[in-house]
């Protein structure tokens, strides 16, 4: 299997766990995996990305432009920022809840995500989800990453089986939150299955 998955969002949203689970799932199904994450000055509120490259023909640690099969976007502007990575027939899973820049109150831009969503609607094959609303149903914003992972898996674009991913989630979340995370994954999975492949 050859697959390139880009995960993007802002620091503190839990993108790293999602990328680890995708990498671990693909590996446990016998694939070679490489990944690269933003580290360094990146902190709460800064743009972050994880590039997960599955397969033996991936050499560059980062996905080349136009080659990502899937973008898992935790924030609409971050999806747009990275849209050049998506392949022509790629899919973007997009959380529509915007995260304002931490400097917004100092230098108002009025950013609320709507122009980004508009742009994505017109130009990209997307599954949109109101992450805030879905997470309220699940009881905590902490489940956003697993919810989005569920949608990506449900869309069929991840290339790894549902059961493999569930078992990797179980290995990586605290036992106390295991059931809730599985619930988040499954509700995402359902959204992905229903909305997947529709333009």
């Amino acid at each position, binding site marked *: 299997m050859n697959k390139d998955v880009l995960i993007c969002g*802002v620091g503190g949203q839990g993108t790293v766990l999602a990328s680890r689970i995708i*990498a*671990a799932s693909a*590996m446990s199904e016998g694939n*070679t*995996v*490489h*990944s*690269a*994450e933003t*580290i*360094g*000055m*990146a*902190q*709460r*509120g*800064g*743009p972050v990305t994880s590039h997960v490259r599955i397969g033996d*023909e*991936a*050499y*560059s*640690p*980062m*996905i*080349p*432009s*136009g080659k990502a099969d899937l973008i898992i976007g935790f924030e609409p*502007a971050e999806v*747009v*920022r990275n*849209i*050049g990575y*998506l392949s022509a027939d790629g899919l973007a899973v997009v959380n529509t809840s915007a995260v*304002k*820049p*931490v*400097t*917004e*109150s*100092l230098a*108002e*831009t009025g*950013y609320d995500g709507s*122009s*980004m969503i*508009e*742009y994505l609607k017109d*130009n990209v094959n997307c599954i949109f989800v109101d992450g805030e609303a879905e997470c309220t149903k699940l009881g905590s914003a902490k489940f956003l990453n697993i919810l989005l992972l569920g949608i990506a898996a449900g869309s069929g674009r991840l290339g790894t089986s549902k059961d493999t991913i569930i078992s990797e989630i179980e290995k990586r979340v605290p036992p106390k939150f295991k059931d809730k995370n599985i619930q988040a994954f499954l509700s995402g999975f359902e959204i992905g299955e229903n909305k997947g492949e529709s333009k």
Partner: protein
Amino acid sequence: MKEYVMGNGAIALGALKAGVNIACGYPGTPSSEIIETLAKYPHEGLHLEWSVNEKAALEVAAAAAYSGARALVTMKQVGLNVASDPLMSLAYVGVEGGLVVVSADDPGPISSQTEQDTRRFADFARIPVFDPSSPEEAFEMIQDAFDYSEKYKTPVIFRPTTRVDHGYASIEVGDKYIPKDYEGFKKDSGRFVIFPRLSYKNHGMIEDRNIQIGNDFSDYRFNTSEGGPSKKAVMASGVSYMYAKETLKDHPQIKLIKIATAYPFPESFMLKQLEGVEEILCLEELSPYIEEQLLKLAGKHHLTLKVDGKLTGHVPHMGENSADSVAKILKAYLETDLEAEYSKKDIPTLPVRPPVLCAGCPHRASFYAVKKAMEKEKTYYCGDIGCYTLGNAMPLDMVDTCLCMGAGVTMAQGFSHVDSDGKAFAFIGDSTFFASGINGVVNAVINEADITICILDNSTTAMTGHQPHPGTGINMMGHDVGKISITNILNGIGLKKVITVDPFELDKAIETVKECAQTKGVKAIIFKSPCIAIEKSSKKCTINDSCVNCKKCIRETGCPALILTDGKVTIDQSLCTGCGLCKQVCPMNAIGGATDE
């Protein structure tokens, strides 16, 4: 067993497999995870330390290597500037056990002051350098580096770059750490005491030896070539090789040569590769190092060869390469069509997300206190390197200079000597103080500077990932050795005024700054409050009805937890740590909670 690890993890695991006996380093992105990984895996019998700085790390390691032990030293590229004094001499003296200096380069630069190239340092010191192109290769190559170091009794440099350090891959990990057996130091002053005569003798030996190493490297397993034969070839090193491979998988007829040992250059390997080649493109980051080596080789052997690269403007000098930039350069070189690029022209304006001091960061309060106290004065604010460099951003705007670690303390002295009207301040973090601040304080006292040194003591090395330091008391062996007191150090140096304040007690902090600024001589204020990323707080501030929405809190502190909701000032409860700075800034007493609890 396979493990999915970061490139730096792979380097650490490779060193363990090589039986490393001692590992020393000073934190710095992108190198810090090497020492941290060593601490996480079984390493009974390994001496592990965060040294006080890179020079100390290399000197500790050198003695171990004189004794036949295998020694690893880790740092970021600018760390090698600090360690260059022992390195240059050590190159002449040589070692008994393997000594590998990992100096991580940072093209971009992504989180560094400079875009310097460690391979030049290797050449300057006349010692070998290894340049891995992937985490998998780094794992193998670090083991080779120890072997070569021992074979030629010389320190060697291992220089990964950010994308190798921070890329993840699966590595086959050995299940047991077996430290190398070593004989111990054998006194031999003719060998280990550097004198002009020894340097003269060894200089000649080193130049002869390097020819030998170059020949040896010509058979080195990671100097490789694939594809071809072709008249147009590509020579690449480090991660640029991976980028080239990504594009050239569609052009298998093009010869791709990888240079893993930039110095000594594997000349006979390269000469063989050049047979039938008329034109060659050099792909590398930072300086045109292998490009220049190739030009020398071509000159020496009268080769008719067109060499494209940085020196011909085909490859940019600055910044990092990427799969895309390399694809573009290669396609121009091979005169093939480019795939249509994603058109960015219709993209809506993206929000900028600049790095800022965290909500609740004590550095914000310290800067604010100095700013308020000095409102009407002429000032020089000499910053330094750490999270607190972000104090330069608006609205604080409290960093006038930043040069290199430790420079704030000394530069403030320079300003005080050329302008006696201005008040010169130095801001220095606690880790930076221990690494290279203390000498500067001694210099200030003995040379009668008039400065106020603000030590921003957050009890950690925050910027590079919260490593311990001498002021935190716990070392990398896990031992509680007691905290070294900054106050005692400053008193020992002879400062007349050393005052510790909590920056969140704003009025007291402002008074302290005023008092110090008015006193002639060298004064120090220790702003003491822990990093909020380490010492989590459940306290929160809240806004009450007295708020008139004047926004002074936002305008003056710039705290990211202060936000506008429908035009009204509110506090983002998910970010607020209840530090209470805004509460003290508010003229209306409209902010409550936090420090009262």
